[in-house]
């Protein structure tokens, strides 16, 4: 056991048991998985991703490049750092060989988001962040303080003195003040992982990782905070920089400050025989503290002379300090056994090698928004250069390392004082001499100095290119330890100064974020809004199968017990063609168009003339874009001289209103027209079939529904129990049909009354699939199914809907382009498979038919494709609609459709297959 009495902030009165690689370990609340393992002198059984070499735990927090585990319980998660997994009772994990495994069971936990607006966001609750947050809070600002570790204090160990008191007492005091401030939100276990434009920061809060219930009960497991701050203070600290040396990937090699963190945070001594190899002062604190906790320690300083004050402290303790000395390599198998010291590679026995090459300011959150970083040769690191409006970087993140300086920078004159510690300059040392094929720059990617040399040898001179060639900095730590070193070594190999080379751009996320957290509530039933009509529950009760049309759930068909979709649709079609059916068409888009210039606007937007439409009448209309291609279609009712009701396709309701508003607001603001969406104001039911007149006449007894009084393409208003109702003779099936419109408030009642009135006629609710078949039998295209944005009204055979009288309308000029006159344009036709049996798959290609029934040799000449295909009850056979090159000229021709490897012959015909004279629609 390497647990040291008197150290650490764990709760030793309680125990937790974790299982790693099948072995059980006890730890305490407050432990990380890594600290539990180190306390037992263990490590996860993990190996490097490419070379399979054993890997241990190399740091104490998110910068650890090696200590990856797969967590199995409480919930499977791949590739977590043992250093960031809090030890909870029952946790099960195992080492990974560089790759994790996604969960095979559904994640039942909740994930959510929270939008927060504040005056100041402080990132990091170390000494700088705490003081900055307190200063802002006392000023009365709304403050949000986030910090990624379980407790505040940053890298303070408790050995420091602030304001004459132990540093952690001061931390507790500030945290207590912030907790009681109503204008402060203080979140630990919350990682600011991305910083975006306009003061926007995303932060991931781990809300249940430290509790035992896994958070399945109430709380979301993780929460993405979407924070919008007027001012952002980045106080994210700094990350220690390793020194690259031969075989620097062995278990038992660690960053110096991390060993100190393990001791003071968890009471764990990471090794008994310790070699500290440093080019910076801070590692001496680790040497002294580990010595005081019982380790045997010696310090090798790469600098020409060791720092005076620290040398004295070491001498007082009998810690040997040797200056001007390099470690060139290591020995060991599953764990380091010796450091190879000096040019002669003298073996110095050890079970822990600590390295420290100085500190890299954690300026990621500054860099995310385009903040420029510049190389500071005194740090051997990149730090924020030019300021950015609204963003401040303070403390170690800004390259300020002395505690007294940090506090002053964060709190100004009101900051608590700390002792001034002299600091000798850091010596910049990226690597020592050794075999470059075993000098690991990015340990998690198994990428070495030799890989960088290969990249440079291949002609790469930019660190961005080297990064992509070597994959350095692309794994979970995103270059936290390897980024600057890669720049430094690349510069060295190129013989150029590192400041010229720069560093790779930091991009979000700062640490890995689970997709589940990013998805938040938007999964399962809430993945996308589901829109339902006012009588949705009636469809459900009637056993409807639904289909998605945009976000709408529309009843597709209503299968009886034992029926499949084909059976149900044939039955529904037959009912409409022989008696009466009823369909919920409430999803159609509806726009109220008001004003003296309403007709002018519609004349400009529809291909046909709308100003000539008489009040009381209905006209089918087509809209095109400027390119002359069909954009939408629908019916237009003239309600008054200055008022129309326009319907659109279900999927295009919003787009058509937007389109009309765009022209009105931006091009023709002089037109006196008001557009109002009434899509959900009015429910529409289509009552179709030879008996529809009987049904509608029975429900609306006040209305004369005879063909003479209520002709095709006219509308009439009536009332039902005092509630206004509008009826229109509109048919999308070719049958006698009425559309009944009523305020959605009364939709359930009106639907019920129509069903009741139709009972004796066997009124049959029909769905969208039946509607598709019925309209296809009549050759009516569906915009978006039979068209794809490259189809003109003429291609659809709808020249009749294109006005020749209007001087202009949107799309008209494009009809005159030579491309639109091409006789080989694809045109809508019908296709009848000659075997009268094969239902041609929608989307099938159409080729010239070869007599031997085989596909011609490639390149196969394509003539077009099938857009709609169904079984027809009326024709008692399958049929299809298709877009075919020069299709109308080919009517009567047999073409081939490849189906399952065979060429199925199909006859091209006119689009209208049922009742071409149109006699049925008048009943």
């Amino acid at each position, binding site marked *: 056991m390497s647990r040291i009495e008197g150290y650490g902030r764990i709760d030793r009165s309680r125990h937790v048991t974790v299982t790693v690689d099948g072995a059980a370990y006890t730890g305490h609340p407050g432990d990380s998985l890594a600290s539990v393992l180190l306390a037992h002198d263990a490590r996860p059984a993990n190996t490097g991703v490419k070379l399979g070499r054993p890997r241990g735990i190399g740091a104490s927090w998110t910068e650890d490049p090696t200590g990856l585990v797969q967590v199995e319980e409480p919930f499977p998660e791949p590739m977590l750092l043992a250093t960031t997994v809090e030890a909870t009772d029952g946790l099960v994990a195992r080492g990974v060989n560089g790759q994790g495994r996604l969960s095979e069971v559904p994640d039942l936990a909740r994930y959510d988001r929270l939008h927060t607006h504040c005056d100041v966001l402080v990132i990091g609750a170390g000494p700088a962040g705490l003081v900055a947050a307190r200063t802002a809070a006392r000023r009365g600002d709304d403050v949000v303080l986030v910090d990624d570790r379980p407790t505040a204090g940053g890298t303070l160990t408790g050995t420091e003195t602030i304001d004459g008191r132990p540093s952690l007492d001061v931390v507790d005091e500030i945290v207590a003040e912030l907790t009681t401030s109503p204008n402060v939100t203080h979140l630990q276990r919350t990682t600011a992982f991305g910083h*975006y*434009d*306009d003061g*926007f920061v995303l932060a991931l809060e781990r809300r249940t990782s430290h509790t035992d219930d896994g958070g399945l009960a109430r709380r979301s497991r993780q929460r993405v905070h*979407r924070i*919008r701050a007027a001012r952002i203070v980045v106080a994210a600290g700094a990350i220690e920089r390793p020194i690259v040396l031969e075989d620097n990937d062995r278990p038992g090699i660690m960053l110096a400050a991390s060993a100190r963190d393990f001791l003071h945070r968890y009471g764990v001594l990471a090794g008994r025989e310790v070699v500290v190899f440093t080019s910076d002062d801070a590692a001496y604190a680790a040497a002294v503290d580990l010595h005081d906790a019982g380790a045997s320690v010696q310090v090798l300083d790469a600098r020409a002379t060791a720092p005076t004050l620290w040398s004295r402290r070491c001498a007082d303790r009998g810690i040997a300090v040797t200056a001007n000395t390099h470690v060139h390599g290591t020995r060991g198998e599953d764990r380091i056994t010796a450091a190879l010291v000096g040019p002669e590679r003298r073996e110095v026995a050890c079970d822990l090698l600590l390295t420290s090459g100085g500190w890299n300011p954690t300026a990621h959150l500054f860099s995310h928004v*385009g903040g420029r970083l510049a190389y500071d040769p005194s740090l051997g690191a990149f730090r924020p250069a030019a300021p950015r409006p609204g963003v401040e970087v303070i403390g170690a993140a800004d390259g300020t390392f002395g505690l007294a300086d940090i506090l002053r920078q964060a709190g100004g004159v009101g900051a608590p004082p700390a002792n001034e510690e002299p600091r000798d300059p850091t010596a910049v040392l990226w690597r020592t001499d050794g075999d470059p094929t075993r000098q690991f720059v990015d340990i998690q990617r198994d990428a070495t100095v030799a890989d960088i040399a290969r990249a440079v040898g291949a002609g790469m001179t930019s660190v961005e290119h080297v990064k992509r060639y070597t994959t350095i900095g692309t794994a979970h730590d995103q270059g936290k330890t390897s980024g600057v070193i890669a720049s430094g070594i690349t510069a060295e190999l190129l013989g150029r100064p590192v400041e010229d080379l720069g560093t790779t751009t930091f991009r979000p996320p700062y640490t890995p974020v689970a997709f589940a957290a990013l998805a938040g509530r938007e999964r399962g039933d809430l993945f996308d809004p589901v829109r339902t009509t006012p009588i949705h529950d009636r469809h459900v009760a009637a056993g409807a199968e639904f289909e998605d049309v945009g976000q709408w759930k529309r009843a597709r068909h209503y299968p009886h017990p034992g029926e499949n979709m084909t059976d149900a649709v044939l039955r529904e079609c037959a009912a409409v063609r022989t008696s009466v059916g009823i369909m919920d068409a409430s999803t159609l888009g509806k726009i109220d168009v008001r004003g003296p210039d309403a007709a002018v606007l519609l004349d400009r937007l529809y291909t046909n003339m709308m100003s000539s439409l008489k009040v009381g009448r209905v006209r089918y209309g087509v809209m095109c874009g*400027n*390119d002359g291609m069909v954009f939408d279609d629908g019916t237009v009712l003239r309600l008054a001289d200055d008022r129309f009701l326009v319907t659109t396709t279900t999927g295009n309701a919003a787009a058509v209103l*937007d389109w009309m*508003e*765009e022209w009105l*607001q*931006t*091009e*023709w*603001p*002089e037109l006196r027209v008001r557009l109002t969406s009434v899509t959900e104001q009015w429910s529409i039911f289509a009552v179709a079939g030879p008996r529809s007149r009987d049904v509608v006449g029975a429900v609306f007894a006040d209305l004369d529904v005879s063909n003479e009084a209520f002709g095709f393409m006219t509308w009439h208003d009536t009332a039902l129990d005092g509630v206004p109702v509008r009826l229109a003779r509109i048919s999308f099936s070719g049958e006698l049909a009425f559309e009944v419109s009523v305020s959605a408030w009364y939709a359930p009642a009106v639907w019920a009354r129509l069903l009741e009135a139709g009972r004796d006629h066997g009124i049959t609710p029909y769905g969208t699939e039946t509607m598709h078949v019925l309209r296809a039998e009549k050759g009516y295209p569906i915009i978006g199914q039979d068209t794809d944005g490259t189809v003109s009204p003429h291609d659809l055979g709808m020249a009749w809907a294109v006005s020749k009288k209007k*001087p*202009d309308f949107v799309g*008209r*000029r*494009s009809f*005159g*382009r*030579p491309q639109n006159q091409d006789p080989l344009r694809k045109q809508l036709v019908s296709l009848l498979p000659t075997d009268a049996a094969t239902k041609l798959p929608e989307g099938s290609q159409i080729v010239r038919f070869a007599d031997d029934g085989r596909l011609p040799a490639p390149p196969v000449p394509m003539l077009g494709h099938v857009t709609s295909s169904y079984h027809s009850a009326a024709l008692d056979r399958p049929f299809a609609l298709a877009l075919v090159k020069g299709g109308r000229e080919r009517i009567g021709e047999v073409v081939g459709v490849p189906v399952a490897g065979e060429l199925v012959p199909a006859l091209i015909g006119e689009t209208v297959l049922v009742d071409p004279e149109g006699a049925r629609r008048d009943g």
Partner: protein
Amino acid sequence: MQLIACPWCGPREEIEFSYGGQAAVAYPADPASLSDEQWARFVFFRDNPKGPFAERWVHSAGCRRWFGAVRDTRTYEFLSVGPLSATTARTSVLPEATP
């Protein structure tokens, strides 16, 4: 998530807005008089400058009003936003006001 200042509703997240392309592209007074090439230019061609660009936007999820904006295409920064003038609309949409 960028903020865009709707001249009417104030700053809102960009997801509430839709892009309307280059401003000041007027619908031709007499399309019939244009050559095919001139017409194709109007329908299909737009400027693509590096730097400030006068654009049209609409606050789709809010007030549904169109407005003009000058945006720097290098930084995405909105340099100014303002209402489309009632008389100039697409034809000269450079807004003057910055909120």
